């Protein structure tokens, strides 16, 4: 039962990653009201106009990074339901679960939320939530700059200081950028998402959050000119682009550095020769959440360890 659940979770997270290939949508929140924030009207990530009549007291979050934001904004006590993958902070996982890849609509309705936050879905989930007379705000950050906007938007939605959080996030990211400005090299980085089919290896391309992180960390993504946010490369193409650093988001299901080094033909890659196949915590870098500064710094330490000594 246990390994089965974990496999399903792995698949789900993987698919969620792939599902979020829609590209970034800019947020243009309504002008903020200086004194009393409610009632307010917000423009969400799907350019929908969402009215929030009063300070929402029962929140449901469908999306691990949204959950992390709500807790970071101090709205944790008002969160009554989260998706199955929300485990940051640990307290979030104690809330009622409302499903993962498939949302359990009955459960969401039963929690009587006055505001539901959700990532984008292309299978009609959002329409279904709306037709159950729920107030839905779509929040789906896809880039590092989206993260600060998300903090601002969510702050307005729950009546908290989102701009303050956005500023502190931006400061931390800027600190990493300032440090990286001193770098004299720009190592080629290959970031592996999934290589379980060795002829079609998933990596990150332009328009993806991790591509932004690589950029901020002072690396040159080998797939930076790919045609999609999550392109598939062949082993031939990876060998040809000769990455100097290979980064693995180390989950129990991903390949280990020794597996990567042992792949047929990969011994010619600079990163393998110089033993620079590095692991990074997947939750930290896969989720465009309030820990983006920490994520950028962790990635920068992998790409430019010489600047952090």
């Amino acid at each position, binding site marked *: 039962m246990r390994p089965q659940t974990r496999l399903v979770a792995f*698949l789900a997270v993987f698919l969620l990653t792939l599902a979020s290939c829609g590209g970034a949508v800019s947020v243009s929140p309504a002008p903020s009201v200086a004194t009393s924030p409610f009632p307010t009207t917000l423009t969400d990530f799907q350019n929908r106009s969402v009215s929030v009549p009063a300070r929402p007291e029962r929140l449901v979050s469908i999306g691990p990074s949204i959950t992390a934001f709500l807790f970071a904004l101090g709205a944790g006590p008002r969160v009554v339901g989260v998706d199955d993958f929300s485990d940051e902070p640990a307290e979030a996982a104690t809330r009622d679960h409302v499903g993962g890849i498939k949302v359990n609509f009955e459960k969401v309705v039963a929690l009587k939320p006055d505001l539901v936050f959700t990532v984008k879905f292309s299978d009609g989930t959002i329409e279904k939530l709306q037709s159950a007379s729920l107030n839905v705000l779509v929040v789906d950050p896809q880039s590092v700059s989206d993260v600060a906007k998300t903090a601002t938007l969510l702050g307005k939605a729950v009546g908290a200081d989102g701009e303050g959080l956005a500023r502190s996030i931006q400061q931390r990211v800027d600190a990493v950028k300032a440090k990286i400005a001193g770098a004299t090299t720009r190592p080629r980085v290959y970031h592996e998402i999934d290589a*379980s*089919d060795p002829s079609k290896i998933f990596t990150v391309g332009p328009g993806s959050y991790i591509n932004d992180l690589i950029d901020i960390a002072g690396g040159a993504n080998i797939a930076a000119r790919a045609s999609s946010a999550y392109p598939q490369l*062949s082993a031939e193409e990876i*060998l040809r682009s*000769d990455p100097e650093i290979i980064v693995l988001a180390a989950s*129990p*299901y991903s390949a280990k550095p020794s597996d990567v080094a042992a792949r*047929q033909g990969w011994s010619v890659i600079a990163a393998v020769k110089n033993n620079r196949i590095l692991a990074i915590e997947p939750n930290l870098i896969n989720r465009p959440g309030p820990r983006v500064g920490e994520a950028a710094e962790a990635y920068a330490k992998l790409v430019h360890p010489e600047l952090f000594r």
Partner: protein
Amino acid sequence: MRTVTVLALLATALIVSAVAGILVGSVAMTPSEVFAALFGSNDVSGTIIRELRLPRVLGAALVGGALAAGGALLQGLLRNPLADPFVTGTSAGATLAAVAAIALGATAPIVPLAAFAGALVAVSIVWRLARLGGSTTVLTVLLAGVVLTSFVGAVVTFILVSSDRLALRLRAVLGWLQGGVSVISWEELAVAAVIVAAGLILALILAHRLDAYAFGEETAATLGVDLDRTTTAVLGATALLSGAAVALAGLVGFVGLVIPHALRFGIGATHRRLIPASFLAGAAALVLADLGARVVLSPAEVPVGAITGLVGAPFFLALLVRSRRVIV
């Protein structure tokens, strides 16, 4: 045409397709770069050609050849053009055993051997079923194949979901069920080559006795063929060939069916020439199919089983219609 001429022509076709297979890949290289890489040059191009493309092309050749030779054997034994390791469920048996072996942590030499054992069990089951009835033999064999294949699909799904270890190779195993020759290591290739060679030699030794089967088992017996021993040996050779093919490339359909059948029209049913000719033609066909798999939707790659299915399934249906007219 003389046997030597036929084999020389087919060998040339194989070499031409192999050269094409090595020249085309996801990283574009000029022919002169490719040949420089093939013979020397220790740079990345050399590694791409020698470590990635060459074993893949050789693997495709080995798989296609083994499946076609296995098909020729099964068709001779069952006296029926509708048999091959894929439709009879032999490949499915090999797949199940191989996936189970991987789930238990086995690697290169064990996996093809497990696949051989699985193929042997499956082919024996099909053989027993084939002998049950009189006129329904063909349908029994095909139904047994269908049942075995879907049963294996179900069991493999259970193994996949319950095994932590397989998650690492999840998409590879799923791709395997569709048939695919992706990255093949020299070690895997060497083990499979030895098994295929053993199967092929055994098949050639049995070729003469299989010819006698064409006249019916009783006639074969009066011609002095030891039926039980021959049957067992033929099934063993088929299992060796399809086990090795499955271990390298998973469930690749229809190569074993179409190639020997088409050759029978061209060069006759004498097994001493049909078996080596099937091997060469099957090898060339799968190398080309794999090339097609890489090219048709480039840069995306199609599983090679989708290519062989696309070409082979209509052929199979045409055969089925024709044979039903005869049988029913």
